[in-house]
């Protein structure tokens, strides 16, 4: 079994947590960038290397990443960290915009900047970022979230072209409503009746972390060697209508 080195943003909840557990089963070496290092220690003990950064404060991210002691170069970057919210346009304050863009977009951009260096990543690496179906469709109350996720898709396309000379693949995954803490919080804001209506909009039902995690694993593997610069939608058919 070939073990690989992965740099993962997030990983203590939802899709990221499921992914980390899967990668650990295959004895891969993982470096996790997390907001709450105590929670991560409880989850993983010494199984992973941990770096504590609050991505809301993206200005210190590069400085922190540059301090990582690289024993062997990374084979993949997975960005599962993110923030989701629903509020009207009139509530889109400067403070909220900065927060959403820092966590969803700017920190990923900086992570890409770090990872793109030859001394940091191996050729033929794979980069996967979690975008959202809200990056391709609109919804009332989702202006800030949608905009921050749409930015990721553009970044992925340009980065894929730039890194293609090193055969590094860069792809985004856009899940529909997935039953994670984040997804459940979104459902809690709805009445039972509205939840039922939304469920009917998903021909294959709501998603589970493992469905998305499996797609990430595929994109990390050599089976996806000819896929780059894409935004892969995984939503149980929500957006095909």
């Amino acid at each position, binding site marked *: 079994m070939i073990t690989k080195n992965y740099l993962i943003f997030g990983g203590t909840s939802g899709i990221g947590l499921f992914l980390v557990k899967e990668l650990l089963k295959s004895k891969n070496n993982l470096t996790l960038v997390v907001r709450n290092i105590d929670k991560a220690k409880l989850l993983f003990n010494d199984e992973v290397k941990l770096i504590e950064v609050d991505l809301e404060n993206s200005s210190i991210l590069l400085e922190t990443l540059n301090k990582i002691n690289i024993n062997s170069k990374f084979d993949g970057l997975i960005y599962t960290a993110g923030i989701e919210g629903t*509020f*009207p346009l009139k*509530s889109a304050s400067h403070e909220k915009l900065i927060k959403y863009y820092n966590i969803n977009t700017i920190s990923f951009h900086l992570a890409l900047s770090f990872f793109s260096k030859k001394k940091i990543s191996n050729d033929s690496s794979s980069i996967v970022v979690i975008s959202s179906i809200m990056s391709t469709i609109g919804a009332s109350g989702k202006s800030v979230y949608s905009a921050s996720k749409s930015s990721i898709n553009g970044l992925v396309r340009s980065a894929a072209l730039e890194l293609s000379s090193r055969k590094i693949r860069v792809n985004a995954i856009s899940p529909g409503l997935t039953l994670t803490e984040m997804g459940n919080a979104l459902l809690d*804001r709805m*009445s*039972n*009746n509205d*939840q039922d209506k939304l469920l009917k909009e998903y021909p294959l039902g709501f998603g589970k972390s493992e469905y998305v995690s499996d797609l990430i694993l595929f994109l990390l593997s050599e089976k996806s060697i000819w896929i780059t610069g894409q935004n892969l939608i995984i939503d149980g058919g929500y957006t095909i209508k």
Partner: protein
Amino acid sequence: MNTKEILNSIFEELEIESVKELDLETVYKDLDEWDSMSVIILIGFFEENFSTTVSGETLNELTTFGDLFLKLKIDDN
């Protein structure tokens, strides 16, 4: 904030024009402005101002602001 001030803040947040003011007996779901975004706004309002989470289903089950304040234990004391 007392209940009157809270109702005034909600009046502003929901940009109510269909009635002159809100009171504890107002049936919020009967307001012309009431829609799915109103639910989101109210949930956000209580989270920001009272650090309390009210679910969409709770808003669906209750009818008046008085019921809602009672549920959230908001009173003038």
